């Protein structure tokens, strides 16, 4: 629920048809300049895959989008809500779901409780409503039968699918994926990617930090390559993979595609 006041703010108008609007974003970790003058616009329903070597700032970038990291300079508007300091944080986080590399499920709760928790406490749903919704999304990620188990009883792939369901239970308008498959055993990667493809085909706005290039080719509207805190290249996948403009991109792609 956006505050009615935000309708009058110019930022809203600037980003009226955009899901995310980023202009000249800068961020430092102490003296380390981790994000340098990042500008990026994401339309509603757009799917973006960000790749780049480790330490290039891609995780930090998407953690800025839901305020897990704060930027020091620049303008960031998410789903019409400007993010400055701590203002707008909770509002944004309600509309932006996030999936982490290490799942981060709550180990002291069952799968069902993990999923129903935020709808109950943040969205103020009744327990029955929230659990019905949780079961619906667990079905969507194809593990309704695990609802009463604890996270530690599940495989990595199952845990990550629960994490996706948990984020979806807040019915977010934007989903962020921070290397969702890089902590998984190879045979479990596909089951998670299948769920993500399904989600993408359903029209969700998605920003994924990922090195799964098959997935990227299939769903991405736009590829982004980052290095040393800068967006080096931004192109549709067809162009990105066949004729990358930048030498650094070409080198990186050759390394992860092994060809």
């Amino acid at each position, binding site marked *: 629920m956006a505050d009615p006041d935000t309708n009058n703010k110019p930022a809203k108008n600037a980003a009226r048809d955009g899901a995310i609007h980023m202009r000249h974003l800068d961020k430092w970790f102490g003296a380390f300049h981790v994000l340098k003058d990042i500008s990026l616009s994401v339309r509603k329903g757009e799917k973006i895959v960000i790749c780049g070597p480790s330490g290039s700032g891609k995780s930090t970038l998407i953690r800025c989008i*839901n*305020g*897990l990291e704060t930027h020091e300079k620049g303008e960031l508007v998410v789903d019409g809500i400007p993010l400055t300091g701590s203002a707008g944080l*909770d509002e944004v*986080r*309600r509309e*932006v*779901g*996030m999936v*982490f590399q*290490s799942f*981060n*499920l*709550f*180990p*002291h*709760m*069952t799968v069902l*409780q993990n999923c129903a*928790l*935020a709808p109950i*406490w*943040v969205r103020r749903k009744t327990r029955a409503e929230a659990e019905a919704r949780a079961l619906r999304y667990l079905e969507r990620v194809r593990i309704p039968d695990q609802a009463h188990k*604890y996270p*530690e009883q599940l495989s990595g792939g199952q845990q990550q699918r629960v*994490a996706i369901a*948990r*984020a979806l239970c*807040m019915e977010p308008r934007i989903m962020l994926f921070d290397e969702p498959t890089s902590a998984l055993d190879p045979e479990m990667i596909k089951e998670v990617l299948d769920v993500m493809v399904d989600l993408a085909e359903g029209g969700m706005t998605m920003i994924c930090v990922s090195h799964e290039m098959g997935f990227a080719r299939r769903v991405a509207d736009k590829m982004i390559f980052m290095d040393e805190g800068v967006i080096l290249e931004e192109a549709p996948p067809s162009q990105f993979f066949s004729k990358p403009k930048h030498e650094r991109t070409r080198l990186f792609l050759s390394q992860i595609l092994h060809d």
Partner: protein
Amino acid sequence: MTNLSDAKILRRDRQTSILAYGWHWARIHLFSSWMNAALTLSAIALLWLTIPALIDWLIISASWTGESREACLNENQGACWPFIFEKWEQFIYGRYPQEEIWRVNLVFLLAFGGALPMLIPAVPWKGWNALFLVVIFPILCLYLLSGGVMGLPYVESSRWGGLLVTLLIAGVGNAAALPLGILLALGRRSEMRILRTLCVLFIEFWRGIPLITVLFMASVMLPLFFAEGASFDKLLRCLIGVALFSSAYMAEVVRGGLQAIPQGQHDAARALGMGYWRMTILIILPQALKIVIPGIVNSFIALFKDTTLVLIVGLFDLLGIIQLHLADPNWSTPQTHYTGYAFAALLFWLFCFGMSRYSQYMERRLGTEPSHNG
């Protein structure tokens, strides 16, 4: 690991005789190496030297009946239990008026009846139970023990004593220290600089002074600062002192648990739109407190035993009242002291052992079944 091998041995040897099993067991557990065998033999020797003498003193040579010191002046006299039986009431209630003792008993009963279902996980209505323990019971407790209103005669706290005072100080101290300690630990990890500094100062102040000093301050020095007649009850002052003192220790125990929770748990809770308090209460604390159960119970036990220090400021807890009665000429025998202290040790040990066992049970339960806040 030993349990597993025990089970294996048991299965394999089910048909063979008990004796063979016993030998097998002893070889694995007691005589597996020269070092182990030497330790086993010295332990047996030590037990042989102490246990028979202890049993003799506690039971066989002890006096069990009698009205006065005459009963405990035999040759080779053991423990003088009639002394304990005779003084039992004072040891439990202190100088609480005899005709009002039912009030203390009712408090004990309410405490037991309130705490027991709370401690057994299978009993439902935990919410109401907690409400009773946290809100209704303390009020009832104060009303029953102190009286002075609604028909109950007033009993001033200087007449309370014995086990009553021990349990009261330990109970109130621990009940106040846990929530206070949690808040202090959260404050110490807060991003608000002033709050964090205040919490650090508070914790380091109380950890830096001995409990005896706290009690002296509470009972002797504090009244000097108050205007004439404005001072309040000595027991209450000591209770507050003990609670603040022990909350500082609790805070550090809880902080250890908070630090063990991975950053990812905070991230996940934040990303779901939870604010600080929801994240802390629903996600962080349940996990952090579970980790530090041993530390919390350690603090509980330490405080329980530290209550004996209130003797210094003229409050008579269990140990204090026993020591007071050791001076009774009617029971002056060579064994009275030993008996009194043995009795005090036994009671203290029973309570502490109970707490320890319960914490082990709780750890096992939480370890196998990670959740019950459904």
